[in-house]
């Protein structure tokens, strides 16, 4: 960021204005649309034939849909980390990353909500949650807190966008008529007066304060969906903190991946510098160590005691059916990224990007391992049930819907980056002025 000071306002604006998709952008968007359509077709089949098209049965009633939901909720936490916590802590270097983090948060929370509806056998009864919901149920808390977090994240995305909308409106010839209309609708009232800035800054501060507990709530409540159920692998008082640490890690991993891609695609090397990767690398390694610590707690202590009901579950994870996946998730999601990022050379853009991808992939499979193996090990033995009830491997419809939802989230981020500046223009210019004044 320190070298931005040398750039003129015009140059910064020109660099950061949204750009049209190039050839690679079109291919990328096309692939995502195709995956989304495949997911939509699979969901159509699920609606037509019912949940029988999935591999979920009486025992495994939460499959990859819920794993995906937990993953989305986890990654959405990044909005509060990068935007709110860094802003409140007056961390200036994170400014170019705030919007990336916020759009990841919004898109993830939208698809977290959608994937829950997909998991419902009778989605037309969704409204019954509100009409007949019991406030005693953690599911109801989750519904409330997800809705709340979505609104707060949208506001946190919108308020800092207002000054940028004014800039976008001014560059009508670059954005085109349709987009300009959209910008005008969203931000034509922003004149950039002192009073408007005062109100906006105050609102952003309030949002930053309020989003932190709400973000903690969203993931803690999601963990309680499991922890309030007395089952091997879920019966833990540690689950809230365990989930939050994991969420921070995957969120930070998601941000470094997005940083690298946006930096490469939009040639933002001047704004997302190696220093950003160095600092984000440090954050990721800290969070990975923290999550590893919680993982050791979650698995070592029950394994040390090896209570009979936990035994089958843990054995399956350590040496049984899920062992390959378990050790893959642990090593790729935590250990290898830690080993890469601990060293200064590992905190360069490419290694950080690779570590980020590992963290995200590892996190997805980790969620799968939290949800599914436990359901295959109930306290009472499985008796007189078809063989298929003893195992779970997602059907093609489940894979298509899960991949479609992940593609949908990426599509939202892609379109957002096409329409709006992915790095806040006004904030960068303001910070440049502030730095210049200091000098």
């Amino acid at each position: 960021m320190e070298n931005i000071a040398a750039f003129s306002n015009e140059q910064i604006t020109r660099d950061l204005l949204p750009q049209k998709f190039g050839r690679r952008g079109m291919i990328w968007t096309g692939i995502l649309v195709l995956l989304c359509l495949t997911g939509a077709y699979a969901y159509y089949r699920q609606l037509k034939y019912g949940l029988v098209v999935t591999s979920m049965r009486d025992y495994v009633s939460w499959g990859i849909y819920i794993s995906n939901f937990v993953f989305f909720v986890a990654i959405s936490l990044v909005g509060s980390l990068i935007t709110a916590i860094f802003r409140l802590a007056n961390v200036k270097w994170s400014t170019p990353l705030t919007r990336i983090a916020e759009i990841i948060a919004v898109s993830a929370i939208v698809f977290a909500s959608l994937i829950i509806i997909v998991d419902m056998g009778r989605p037309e009864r969704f409204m019954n949650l509100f009409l007949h919901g019991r406030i005693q149920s953690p599911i109801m808390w989750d519904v409330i807190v997800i809705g709340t977090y979505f609104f707060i994240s949208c506001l946190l995305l919108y308020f800092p966008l207002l000054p940028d909308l004014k800039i976008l409106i001014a560059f009508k010839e670059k954005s085109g008529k349709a987009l300009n209309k959209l910008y005008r609708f969203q931000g034509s009232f922003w004149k950039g007066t002192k009073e408007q800035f005062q109100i906006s800054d105050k609102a952003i501060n309030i949002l930053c304060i309020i989003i932190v507990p709400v973000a903690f709530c969203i993931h803690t409540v999601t963990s309680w969906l499991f922890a309030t159920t007395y089952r091997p692998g879920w019966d833990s008082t540690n689950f809230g903190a365990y989930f939050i640490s994991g969420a921070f890690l995957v969120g930070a991993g998601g941000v470094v991946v997005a940083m690298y891609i946006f930096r490469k695609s939009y040639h933002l090397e001047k704004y997302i510098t190696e220093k950003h990767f160095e600092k984000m690398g440090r954050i990721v390694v800290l969070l990975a160590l923290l999550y590893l610590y919680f993982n050791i707690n979650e698995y070592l202590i029950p394994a040390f005691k090896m209570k009979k009901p936990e035994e089958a579950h843990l054995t399956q994870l350590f040496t049984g059916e899920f062992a390959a996946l378990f050790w893959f998730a642990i090593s790729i999601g935590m250990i290898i990224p830690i080993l890469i990022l601990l060293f200064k050379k590992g905190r360069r853009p490419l290694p950080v990007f690779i570590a980020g991808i590992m963290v995200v992939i590892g996190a997805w499979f980790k969620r799968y391992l939290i949800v599914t193996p436990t359901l295959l090990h109930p306290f009472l033995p499985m008796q007189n049930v078809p063989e298929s009830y003893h195992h779970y491997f997602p059907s093609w419809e489940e894979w298509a819907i899960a991949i479609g939802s992940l593609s949908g989230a990426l599509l939202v981020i892609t379109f957002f980056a096409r329409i709006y500046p992915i790095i806040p223009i006004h904030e960068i210019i303001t910070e440049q002025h502030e730095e210049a004044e200091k000098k």
Partner: protein
Amino acid sequence: MKKLKKNKLLLLFLVFTSMISNTVVGQDSIVAKEIVKLQYFNRNNSLQYLILESILKKGKQIEPQKSKAFKIFLDKDQPENLVAKVMTDDNGKAKAIIPPQLKSIWDSAEQHNFLVVAEASGKEGETPSEFTIRKAKISIDTSSADGTKNISVTVMKYKNGEWLAAKDVEMKIGVQRLGGILPAGESDSYTTDSTGIATSEFKKDSLPGNEYGDLMLVARVEDNDELGNLIVEKPVPWGVVTKTDNGFFNQRALWSTRFRTPLWLLFMAYTIVIGVWGTIIYLVVQLVKIKKIANSTA
């Protein structure tokens, strides 16, 4: 001396090994004996049923014979005298109710033989097991005098074409509870006198009864060689009225319906929701304010 000690040890070793080998050989040579037991039950002089138990005795070990089929006959090993075909369960037991179509055979004699024949034993000439039962009836009566409650149980047996008092029949008299029969008086068992009557004083005051205060008195003759098992029951209003506390289901709890949410939870949830959503609304108002400022500037 040393030699003697050595010999002694050798002798001891030989005795010990011969004992062990004898035991092992002995165990191998023990022939397994199949035992079939049949118990006759008469409940309230109306329902008559039989419980068959099949066990395999091998030395001191007793093992229930699972899934073994038997035929039970009344008096004669004939198809028209068939009581039931039964199959033993995991405990080696099977139950058969004496069917109504055997009433004429039952009424025709004072005592009856039950013949148990194992099915598919592969031993055609196997002698059936026989169990003899004399017809009997049991009744229970109660009386109260000077605050004392008495229970008298009469046992009669059918002999020489008439119902005679059955004397020296041992039985339990008490109150039916979940875990078994709680003795009504101070003694655990009673015996009928020459008139066939056994009497017990009811000394269990303040026993919880049902919603009307009723207790179920029970008299039970168990495994009598001549009469089998006789059971008679009678409800009496001698207990304490038990009121079911349905308030448990009406309380505000985490597991209750949505209309019975705990107040603390409602307070916490609404406080948080109102607090957070109040802030969101405030922020939306700020947006409107920003818009208004723009209009006034224009």
